[in-house]
């Protein structure tokens, strides 16, 4: 049969690669023969050939002695696919279309295997194949494709490099745990692969950031859905640990990715993941030094870094939709009617079931609140740069009054959400940390809240404490505000009524 013929050709390919290096001229001659004989000369035949090769490779893996070489055929297939991506003349079909075709075939075989075999499905051969594609492409692209002797081809490949990774990322998105749970652990290993993750995060002009973020959010969403308040299954617990380890690696190598994408990451982080939240928000720009946050004499106004506007990769304004105009108009000229509009638009149409600490569902749209608060912070930072600090470090400024009014006029839940997001902005030394520190400190002692002040103070303390009772790291800005609240003279924390009603917290604050 045709398929059997393809099996034979592929077996020959595997044998050749066991005798010579993949860069040997014999290899090129073999590929040329495959084209000449019509094995891979058309899209149809190519698809059939890859289909047969992959099925044979997976079968070979399943039937091989597990203590021996189980990946020989898969490895050979990986080398063939990348070789074809590199050496072919792309006259009739583009390299991108060709790559998409290859991935589509892999997806086809993979999803058929996953759905038909369910509990007998083994993720390892597919993991190996995809890992090999990363590795083989990595060898090809070394030193900007220096090993490619043809100047024209080298230029094409350089131009295609970003697209290759983004195409790959798109297929990884399709393979996410929600879709293929039996591939979950392989998937987590793939998105953090040493020849994928750091490459995606260092592509020129941050070209890989968007798709990498999508993949991390896929992981967060999966965790969120299956994390119960009081327990998680062993499998989910292991996934969580892997996720934490990956984010720690990113925080070390590419802190700017976490810094600039914190908004999107927090929108999708499970509510109760306090430590992971702290890890994301504790990221510090590479090479930045900062003073000891526990120094009670530290003045943020003296720090040059606290005048810098942090970069934001995704503008939260994109999530405001109909609220964009009212918010921006309010910031220009505050008015009660605009405030009413804003307050009326922060509610969800249906409850959002969340496994929160202290709550099981939310009626306020936390994504909208986060967008508003961050947008206000961004605008305040820009205003500070444009005019002066007096324009924004001022309880009369529209930036302050919008947040103040949302808290003053909002439900307890809205108060909590606004305050929580403000505390999230207490990160490394920058203008947002500085400004939100000012706002929170001011609000903590503000007479303007009248008889609401106790509620506001309790919420501020709750949002701070839930970040610092957690194992480290703690964001620099949170540590600063904690120190300031403990050392300020205006309000004796231990005399607050709501503190006395919670002996455990009273004890903790006494110790602190």
């Amino acid at each position, binding site marked *: 049969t045709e398929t059997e013929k393809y099996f034979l050709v592929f077996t020959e390919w595997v044998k050749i690669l066991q005798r010579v290096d993949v860069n040997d001229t014999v290899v090129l001659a073999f590929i040329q023969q495959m084209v000449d004989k019509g094995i891979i000369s058309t899209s149809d035949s190519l698809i059939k050939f890859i289909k047969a090769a992959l099925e044979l490779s997976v079968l070979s893996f399943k039937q091989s002695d597990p203590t021996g070489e189980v990946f020989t055929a898969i*490895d050979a297939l990986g080398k063939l696919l990348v070789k074809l991506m590199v050496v072919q003349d792309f006259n009739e079909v583009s390299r991108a279309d060709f790559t998409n075709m290859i991935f589509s075939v892999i997806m086809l075989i993979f999803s058929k295997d996953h759905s038909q075999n369910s509990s007998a499905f083994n993720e390892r051969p597919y993991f190996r194949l995809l890992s090999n594609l990363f*590795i083989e492409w990595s060898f090809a692209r070394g030193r900007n494709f220096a090993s490619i002797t043809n100047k024209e081809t080298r230029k094409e490949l350089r131009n295609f490099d970003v697209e290759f990774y983004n195409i790959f990322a798109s297929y990884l998105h399709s393979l996410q745990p929600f879709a293929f*749970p*039996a591939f979950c652990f392989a998937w987590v*290993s793939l998105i953090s692969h040493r020849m994928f993750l750091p490459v995606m995060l260092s592509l020129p002009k941050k070209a890989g950031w968007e798709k990498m973020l999508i993949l991390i959010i896929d992981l967060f969403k999966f965790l969120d859905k299956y994390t119960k308040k009081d327990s998680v299954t062993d499998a989910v617990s292991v996934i969580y640990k892997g996720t934490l380890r990956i984010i720690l690696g990113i925080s070390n190598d590419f802190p700017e990715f976490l810094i600039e994408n914190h908004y999107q990451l927090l929108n999708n982080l499970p509510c109760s993941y306090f430590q992971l939240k702290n890890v994301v928000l504790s990221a510090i720009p590479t090479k930045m030094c900062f003073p000891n946050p526990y120094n009670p004499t530290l003045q943020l106004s003296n720090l040059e870094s606290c005048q810098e506007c942090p970069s934001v990769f995704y503008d939260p304004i994109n999530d405001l939709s109909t609220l964009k105009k009212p918010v921006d108009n309010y910031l220009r000229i505050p008015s009660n009617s605009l405030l009413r509009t804003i307050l009326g638009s922060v509610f969800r149409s249906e409850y959002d079931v969340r496994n929160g600490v202290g709550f099981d569902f939310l009626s306020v749209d936390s994504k909208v609140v986060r967008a508003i608060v961050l947008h206000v912070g961004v605008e305040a930072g820009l205003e500070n740069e444009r005019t002066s600090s007096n324009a924004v470090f001022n309880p009369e400024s529209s930036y302050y009054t919008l947040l103040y009014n949302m808290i003053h006029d909002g439900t307890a839940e809205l108060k909590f959400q606004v305050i929580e997001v403000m505390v999230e902005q207490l990160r490394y030394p920058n203008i947002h940390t500085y400004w939100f520190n000012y706002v929170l400190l001011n609000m903590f002692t503000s007479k303007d809240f009248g008889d609401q002040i106790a509620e506001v103070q309790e919420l501020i303390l709750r949002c701070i404490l839930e970040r610092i009772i957690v194992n480290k790291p703690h964001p620099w800005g949170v540590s600063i505000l904690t120190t300031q609240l403990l050392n300020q003279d205006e309000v004796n924390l231990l005399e607050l009524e709501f503190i006395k009603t919670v002996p455990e917290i009273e004890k903790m604050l006494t110790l602190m």
Partner: protein
Amino acid sequence: EMPAQMAAQLESSLLNCPDSLDADSPYLYRKQLSLPHPTSIFFPNEP
């Protein structure tokens, strides 16, 4: 609640989790650096 089938698939994935050996670079063809030769019994015999 995670559907039972999904939970079973997740467990299976955990059991088959690829490790660092699975992620290592593939080598089909490895030319021997050096031919076998009788050496002292005192030399290490595992690389």
